[in-house]
């Protein structure tokens, strides 16, 4: 069945913004993250499950606010007390999750189609966030995540890497067009390559 990704109609490839006379290596790189699985795990109040026994590819559920974990293919984000978001390129990640816990311990909800995700990479990536979000990014490092607002749109921000700074920014799918505009318009001053 043919798919339409959230940003397929917004994301125009190529160079944009103040790119003239700039080394392409210094430009921001922005791409839509697609073909990804997203599950929310919410531990039930009455469950006695020890989250230390949960591990995907060796990554545990981060048990502190603002922390994320994982690698290029898997991200686990703290969302709220006893709530996590698992984001993975593994199409069968739900089976892996199922091996770790049961749906009597966690409310497991498939949200794979509900988010538009942009990856923003480059030295100015955090400055893009500062242009629309009141979040304090002074101590925002690799494997930090936060939910906040960006130009009035609720977003989740996850720092996957710090060299170069690589952020995944997620918004509800219906906001895709406005979200994409806000992020890319803020990136024009730095110049960016949409891939």
């Amino acid at each position: 069945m043919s798919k339409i990704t959230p940003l397929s109609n917004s994301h125009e490839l190529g160079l944009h913004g103040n790119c003239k006379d700039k080394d392409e290596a210094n430009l921001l790189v922005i791409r839509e993250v697609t073909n990804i699985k997203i599950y929310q795990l919410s531990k039930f109040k009455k469950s006695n499950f020890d989250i230390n026994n949960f591990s995907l590819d060796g990554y545990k559920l981060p048990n502190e606010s603002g922390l994320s974990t994982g690698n290029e293919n898997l991200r686990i984000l703290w969302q709220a007390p006893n709530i996590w978001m698992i984001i993975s390129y593994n199409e069968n990640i739900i089976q892996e999750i199922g091996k770790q816990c049961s749906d009597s311990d966690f409310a497991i909800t498939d949200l794979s189609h509900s988010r538009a995700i942009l990856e923003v990479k480059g030295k100015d990536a955090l400055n893009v966030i500062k242009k629309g979000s009141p979040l304090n990014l002074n101590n925002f490092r690799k494997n930090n995540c936060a939910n906040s607002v960006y130009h009035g749109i609720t977003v989740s921000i996850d720092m996957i890497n710090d060299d170069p700074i690589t952020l995944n920014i997620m918004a509800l799918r219906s906001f895709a067009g406005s979200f994409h505009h806000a992020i890319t318009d803020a990136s024009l001053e730095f110049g960016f390559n949409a891939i």
Partner: protein
Amino acid sequence: MSQEFRISSGGLIDRSKEISFIFNGKKYTGYKGDTLASALLANGVHLIGRSFKYHRPRGIIAAGVEDANGKVQLYKDSITEPNVNVTEVELVEGLRIESQNCWPSVNFDVGGINNFLNRFFPAGFYYKTFMWPKSFWYNVYEPFIRKAAGMGKASLDPDPDRYEHQYEHCDVLVVGSGPSGISSALSAAKNGARVILAEDKARFGGSLLTDNVTIGNKKGDEWVEDSISELKSMPNVIVKKRSQVFGYYDHNMLVMFERCKDHLKNPEPYTPRQRLWYIRAKHVLISTGSIERPLIFANNDRPGIMLATSAREYLKVYGVLPGKNPIIFTNNDTAYETAIEFKANGIESIVLDTRKSSNAGVVQEAKALGIDIKFNHGIANTSGYKKVKSATVGELNESKNGYKNLTTIPCDSIFVSGNWTPTVHLASQSGNKLKYESETDTFLPNQSRQQETVIGSANGSFTLKESLTDGFSKGYQISDEITKNGIETSIPISDEKDFGSHDKFWCMPLPNKKHYKRFVDFQNDVAVSDIQLAVREGFRSIEHVKRYTTLGMATDQGKTSNLNGLQLVSDLEKKIVPEVGHTTFRPPYTSVTIGTIIGREVGKNYRATRKSPMHEWHEKHNAVFVDAGLWLRPRFYKRGNETLQEAAKREALNVRQNVGICDVTSLGKIDIKGTDSAEFLNRVYTNAFLKLPVGKARYGVMLREDGMVFDDGTTTRLAENHFHMTTTTAQAANVLSHLEYYLQVVWPELDVNVVSTTEQWAGAAIAGPKSRELLQRLFPEEDMSNEGFPFMGFKELEFKNTIARVFRISFSGELAYEMNVMSDYGEEMWNEIISQGKDLGIQPYGTEALSTLRIEMGHVAGSEIDGRTIAYDLSLEGMLSQKKDFIGKRSLSRKAFTEDNREKIVGVVPIDKKTSIPEGSYLVENAKAGFPNPKLGHVSASCWSVEYDNPFSLAIIKDGKNKKGEKLFAVSPLKNKIIPVEIVSQHYVDPEGKRVRS
């Protein structure tokens, strides 16, 4: 004759880069590094505009934001901006400026006649003069005042520039880069604090750019340069010039605008013009310095009269002589610096000092240089229409209320100094209640309300030594509370001139029997006589005097006039200044463009929009969209020249006759899991949910605790402990918060998880008598018969390698289904449904047809569920369980909610079966009754019934249950309509609800 007032060397401008500009049609040149003001003065241009009320010629009086007169209309490329201050605009190629508030020209201004009629324009003149006759207001007075007031003209074109916002968080924000600002930034930064240093001008340094001082072994300006480079090299410091911190808000949030582009010759295309910074600072160090006060004397507003330190700034920073034959008039020592600086550049001046003597070092130095000083002298009057030509001066008598003798001295400029006013605006905005310091005649910050500390001359520390000590020690102290690093920076030794105290005398007497204007507020043309009149007429509170005279109410916010005005009121009322008090300082400190405040959110991006995965399909098929909250939903799909009504009728009729498809993605969807889910829903909904079988949907109604209907929708039990709730588009977010509130706050013992899945699923409603056939085609293997898939049934089915959730629910009152697939597949689903339904006559329908269908069926929606109706009013009382408690139930037994003649929903049909009833019309018994005509109810929604081909409306009306068959009138005074109507059942079509179950 080009730049004849520019000295040949010195200053911080770049003489190798000449820049031309046009002022009132005439071409001038200046240099890179000039402001418009300095470039104009370099060309000997003092006359900039006409004053607000009397249209008197006015010139530049200062070199910074405090200037009260230099407002012009600025043109650059295709843009224009009104009320721009020439002291704040940096010179770049391509600028054209024009005087404002004058017609036909600044040199010959018709309004100047007001100057000669000035005794008809006293304080409160607007209040007194334009009162009668009332009919004159719109046609005569108001247009006249508007034209006469003639500030600049706003552009009618869209602003072509980009504006951006930026959020920053820091430990210490330092506002102002004078000696105390730089030293505090240095010591805080070296102690490891995250520092932002903001300077509003194009150059750092503040008074150090003009004062002859040394710090350490460096000259003041060299120390500035080195310190700024050092700060810029530190990773924990952000240094910003051209950045005005203009507002101090709650929880140490400060707002600043940065001028990013206008000063650049060839800016990059996407560089914003201005950037608005929201800075959350743990502590704010306010080192905003102080502003020189003018002295008040007769005709003290002529072009060529300016503040003494500003004159020195023009000389030292821009290499410009604002006058070649100046009189310097002062009541303190600082103006002597100006005399000395001018002397060093070969300009002789006369100093008039109101004091009897001064022993300050700087005065001795001036004496030693042979500068002509006349103590105990005042200026009684000036002359010169477009520029000052001479001053009438005289020795003051013993009581300083007159002159012993008067002589006239020719001059081309007068530089005045009436002592210093600390810039306390930000501290005051933060909530600091100011205290009065009578020794210096200043209001100073007192007790900090938020995390703010005022340092340097803004805090009354007027010497360099004090300022540096203040800066270094406070910078360390405050940073150390945050960083605890304990790294203290030593205070360098400084050297400066010696200054003494000022004369508490600042308002010169008029010459005998003369009534010249002595201006206090230049921008709003408020003179001493206006304030005297206000006090004479009984205004006592300074806030009242301010509003009556408009003192300090112009765009300069009285930066140069407030304190003189206060002192005057205190003299007149024979009160001390602190008893008079001061007026309130409010943000913004200087004018901020609206574009900067709006930022990126302009045009179609003025707010975020939400779109369904089928949005592009709708666009391609001529959908006209309507806002539903943030969602854009197709209102109708336009064919040819159809009107909205024609299209809605066609689409709705097609649903009644064949089959239609409607995008319902925007309906809220909430996934509910957990062992207490059924119990929770049973409390949230008014009807029973405990025993809803798996695989079945149920319509549910939610109330608020006050008993009003909150929302409705269907909820489906997917598994024993798993439900799928739907909400209206409008209330989706509120319902989720409502559920979270009850789960987290009220009943935390319930083990239920709720999460929004609105965007996970793309939804299509398929409605009409042929919908079953269409469904059968989509799912050929499935039993779609009425028995196999009954009303309120649910099936999860395989659909083209993915799964589809199919619900047999109906909003249109027809046989109908709702189909959901995961959003990526939404458009594919939609195309498949349309292609399978082609020969069944399928048509997409929008919200307008959707409304028509639900209205004629009598289904309630947002226009009835308006937060003022209970279930009974909407004929939903059957949904109220008698057996269980639920949210809001107890409210329903309140007396008003149980009264026999309560409002109830009814149908309304015009008697002529032709006239549509405007939504919002009132229903009354007698259309001709006088006002107030008793209202029986209101029309909540109207449509053109496609079933009966006549107008039909829903209304909520008093005693509705007994009103059926009555003949009333629908009146809409807004649309000037009176329509005879008959009250009928709300269920106009299929009152038994057979179709949905067929």
